[in-house]
């Protein structure tokens, strides 16, 4: 282990015993934390010799002495809202902030709560689900989160429950070199339906390594939107794992705009016949931002379908990596899996790298993948200008057209409109500066 890696890991080792002693978790959870920490120690910090981390340079966050989170006041006015009724949970520096949150009536046994509080009040409802979703076994920050998570959101919809209003989760960080490890546990039992918006954001410098576990029962439908708008100095290394039962549908939208280094590792398993999953990703990169998406879609059962579209718009010296694996197991006949990565470069210094991969063990499947990276089409730009539209406006129109294809897939209108506004402001700024 290198000195820098040891320098990063040792404080967590020193902190772990005290951390456990102060927890009042039921034994089963303490054991899981120990197991997770053992896993983290075994994995160590990733090095660029490991294929999955070859393109992610962690030397900057590794060299910083991160602190355990502490409370800080936050002005409610800076927190994002959706222009519609929601179940709203706000977390400041990883901890539930009831005064900033707003929960309405919920049907029957439905639970939308702080995971930290629910662990005290309803551990029996968490126990069967937490740490049970497979995936991200090799991800050290997922392991570390498993050891150290303190709070986050727990959403549990019993069989057949439909929530009419979306659930809005806002994670705000106030900097101070804190390491935040929020946890999300999202369980939709058979036939349940929900729409969830998760926002990661903050000010100044911090490290955010959230982990989300999502279980979808038979016939359940989830619309999940993740908006990573972290502070420009922040580091974000998030994990998301998902398991889908028979005939369930997951629509995942992953929007990444912020942080100096952002990475999302997503692993999903279509574990029941006829499960359907769409992954819609959009990255906006500028300055020296680095953004990576590593996706693994596992088709384990027949008649499943998955559709991935990951797009990046990269300006100045921004870099983006898309690494996508579709794995189709021997049983997963009649799988229909598609994957497309498209990047638009707005500067000669911007870079995009796509690594689409297929592993197909079944013989009767439809799988496709593709990637493209390019600059704005000069013919299209000329066509617009030849109709009187000034060059800067023509470029803007074409960039919007490229990105809107992703935003248009978001059904939640208030969120879609807000993101369109973020995009417009961002591009206007880039064009002024550029």
């Amino acid at each position, binding site marked *: 282990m290198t000195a820098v890696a040891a320098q990063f890991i040792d404080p967590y080792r020193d902190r772990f015993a005290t951390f456990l002693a102060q927890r009042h978790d039921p034994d089963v959870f303490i054991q899981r934390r120990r197991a997770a920490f053992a896993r983290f120690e075994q994995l160590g910090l990733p090095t660029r010799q490991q294929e999955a981390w070859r393109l992610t340079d962690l030397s900057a966050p590794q060299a910083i002495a991160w602190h355990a989170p502490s409370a800080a006041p936050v002005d409610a006015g800076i927190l994002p809202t959706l222009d519609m009724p929601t179940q709203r949970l706000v977390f400041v520096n990883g901890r539930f902030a009831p005064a900033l949150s707003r929960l309405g009536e919920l049907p029957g046994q439905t639970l939308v709560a702080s995971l930290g509080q629910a662990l005290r009040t309803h551990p029996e409802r968490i126990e069967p689900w937490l740490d049970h979703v497979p995936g991200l076994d090799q991800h050290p920050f997922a392991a570390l989160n498993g050891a150290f998570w303190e709070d986050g959101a727990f959403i549990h919809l019993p069989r057949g429950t439909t929530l009419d209003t979306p659930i809005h989760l806002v994670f705000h960080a106030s900097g101070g070199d804190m390491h935040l490890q929020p946890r999300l546990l999202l369980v939709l039992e058979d036939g349940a339906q929900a729409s969830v918006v998760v926002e990661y954001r903050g000010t100044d410098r911090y490290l955010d390594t959230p982990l989300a576990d999502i279980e979808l029962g038979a016939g359940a439908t989830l619309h999940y939107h993740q908006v990573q708008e972290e502070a420009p100095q922040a580091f974000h290394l998030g994990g998301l794992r998902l398991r889908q039962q028979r005939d369930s549908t997951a629509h995942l939208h992953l929007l990444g705009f912020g942080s100096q280094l952002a990475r999302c590792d997503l692993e999903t398993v279509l574990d029941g016949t006829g499960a359907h999953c769409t992954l819609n990703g959009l990255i906006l990169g500028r300055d020296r931002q680095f953004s990576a998406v590593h996706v693994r879609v596992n088709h384990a059962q027949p008649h499943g379908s998955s559709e991935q579209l990951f797009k990046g718009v990269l300006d100045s010296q921004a870099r983006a990596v898309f690494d996508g694996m579709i794995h189709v197991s021997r049983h997963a006949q009649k799988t229909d899996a598609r994957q497309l990565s498209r990047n638009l470069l707005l500067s000669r210094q911007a870079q995009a790298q796509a690594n689409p991969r297929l592993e197909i063990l079944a013989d009767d499947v439809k799988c496709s993948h593709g990637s493209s990276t390019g600059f704005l089409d000069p013919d*299209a730009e000329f*066509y*617009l200008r*030849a109709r*009187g539209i000034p060059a800067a*406006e023509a470029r803007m129109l074409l960039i919007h057209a*490229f990105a809107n*294809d992703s935003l248009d897939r978001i059904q939640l209108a208030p969120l879609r409109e807000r993101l369109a506004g973020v995009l417009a402001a961002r591009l206007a700024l880039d064009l002024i500066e550029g």
Partner: protein
Amino acid sequence: MLEIRNLHVTVEGREILKGIDLSIRPGETHAIMGPNGSGKSTLANVIAGREGYTVTQGEILFDGKNLLDMPAETRACEGLFLAFQYPVEIPGVANLYFLKAAVNAVRKYRGEPAVDAMDFWELVQERMALVKMDESMLKRSVNEGFSGGEKKRNEVFQMAVLQPRFAVLDETDSGLDIDALKVVADGVNALRNPERGFLVITHYQRLLDYIVPDHVHVLVNGKIAHSGGKELALELEEQGYALYNEEPGRARRAAA
């Protein structure tokens, strides 16, 4: 209104236009005919302001203003229109949105307020009928998935909405069947008036049966080899361009 004087143009160091002189007055329709590679599309692109062409000699004046000093968008705002030989597909930009942006760009240039939504819609409806275009094409992305005929119709439709003072039609007939050709020609003819000028570029005489020009010029090897009235188009149809592939003096004798 359009004066081209001794225009020499090179592309990647190769001279394509070798001294073009052309004068078009308001209300006139001129046709330029010529074989492949004669420089027809280069002329259209240089007039419209496309990058990649170097003017080494000569000038183009549009109502006395030096066109070559203006970027493409300014030329369009001044009232110049190019109907593209290959209209570009622009995924993600709806046709109607694009058209409104274009109309407003021109209005802004003239110091006029943005177009009123109802007025714009009425204009669009009226002009759509002119080229027998289906309303569904307004909502679709610009030219995306359009057939060859639909693309050309869309060009004429844009021209009808933008109402330029001078329009260049670059092989608008290519890839059209006879019915589509008639629709497109009817659209163009409806826009002809004593103030508006047209330059119709084509390889084939067929289009000129429907858009009858006042003057016909034969472009061969980067030069205008011959000019005449509309009957010149018919002669070319019978005799082909082979005559002009010889040295200019002989070509003139042969055509005379």
